[in-house]
């Protein structure tokens, strides 16, 4: 699978994320000959434990996430970030979790937008919105995926990814836009994953971006 970076938009202090910024970012990608190639969507679901007494909830993880990814329509992913756990399962795991009646949905977020072909790169730009409010203007964040199709080694693709992202950042800062994209690479080895990129890596990247969006909102 091609190596991929997942970046999130970090607005400067006091600035927000909104449709205008998202549009400007898309135009920036198109200005370097990005060709629109369809839409994409990932869904992140926060689960919470079902307990008889709320005081018992503390003994169960608060960062238990379920993730569906656009490139894996038949798979579902679970991440418990604090314990560096990643599990890949079939879609049927969702119905099983329902039947177990031990965890239920707390909140679900859509990561969705447009994807572009750009030579050897595939770029996805999108907004983060609560799943039940996807048509509203309110967005919790903006993300960008950059995939380098020829290489699946994370290490070997690092330099070319950096160069590409630098180009994009420069275009956006010249607009100017009140913020920039941030890339924080999770430590995949801590999750037991190798240097070869897989959808499990993608699920971890999304959970990391989610954690950063939450951290930013609580500041």
């Amino acid at each position, binding site marked *: 699978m091609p190596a991929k970076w997942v970046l999130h938009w970090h607005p400067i202090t006091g600035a927000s994320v909104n449709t205008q910024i998202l549009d400007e970012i898309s135009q920036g990608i198109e200005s370097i000959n990005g060709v629109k190639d369809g839409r994409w969507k990932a869904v992140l679901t926060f689960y919470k434990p079902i307990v008889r007494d709320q005081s018992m909830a503390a003994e169960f993880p608060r960062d238990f996430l379920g993730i569906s990814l656009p490139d894996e329509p038949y798979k579902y992913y679970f991440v418990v970030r604090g314990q560096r756990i990643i599990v890949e399962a079939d879609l*049927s795991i969702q119905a099983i979790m329902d039947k177990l009646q031990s965890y239920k949905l707390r909140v679900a977020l859509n990561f969705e937008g447009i994807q572009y072909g750009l030579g050897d790169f595939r770029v996805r730009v999108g907004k983060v919105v609560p799943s039940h409010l996807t048509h509203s203007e309110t967005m919790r964040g903006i993300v960008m995926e950059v995939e380098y199709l020829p290489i699946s080694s994370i290490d070997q693709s690092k330099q070319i990814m950096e160069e590409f992202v630098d180009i994009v950042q420069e275009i956006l800062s010249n607009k100017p836009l009140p913020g920039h994209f941030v890339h924080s690479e999770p430590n995949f080895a801590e999750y037991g994953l190798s240097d070869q990129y897989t959808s499990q890596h993608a699920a971890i990247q999304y959970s990391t971006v989610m954690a950063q969006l939450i951290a930013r909102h609580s500041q």
Partner: protein
Amino acid sequence: MFSHVDGTFHECVVQGIIETQHVEALEILLQGLCGVHKERLRIHELCLKSSPNLGNGTSEFRFICDLEQQPEPSWSLRHIGGAMRGAGAEQLAVLVRSVGESKVSKQALRLFYALGYRLDHELLRVGFSFHFQRGAQITVTVSSVNKMLKLHAIEEAVPVTPGIQLVEVTAPASADNYPEVAAAVSSFCEYLAPLLHLSKPGVSTGVVPTAAAAAASLMSDGGGTTL
């Protein structure tokens, strides 16, 4: 093909026991009836239950680790739901129950421990199975059920009931076709009657008195005899 939109399905199931000394005869009989080769079975089953504070009642499921898979064992999660009620389901000689199954990657056990599940017990099933089509997609599994004396020590497993093996006949079904599937399973089980008695799980059966004679007959001419 029988799965609902959410990936769960139903299955028809009956179980029985047979003395280990007659397993070879059963294998000859099954080989003759099914027309396919047996598959070796070596499965590590871990039964997980929720800790007392989690959920509105106890939930449980099994991890199935298929040790025969190469190069690495494969893991799946299996949740058995309730028995189908009404519409004549309860009167059938086979149990019709809902089942959820999912392949899972190998950190799944760690995940569910972190979510508040505990290992209730684990088993090693060793034997063989036949998969074939006969009015329904039927699977017959013959296995010794073994327990581990130390946690996860599958190399040191000992039989739970020495000298006795478990036979399971299952077939996937949907809410629409379960009567036909149940009939196909029942009908197939009649061929096994001389060797063992199969019934709904939970309904106790013993070994059948004709087993020794039937087994001897099968062993003596390699399955040419019609029972």
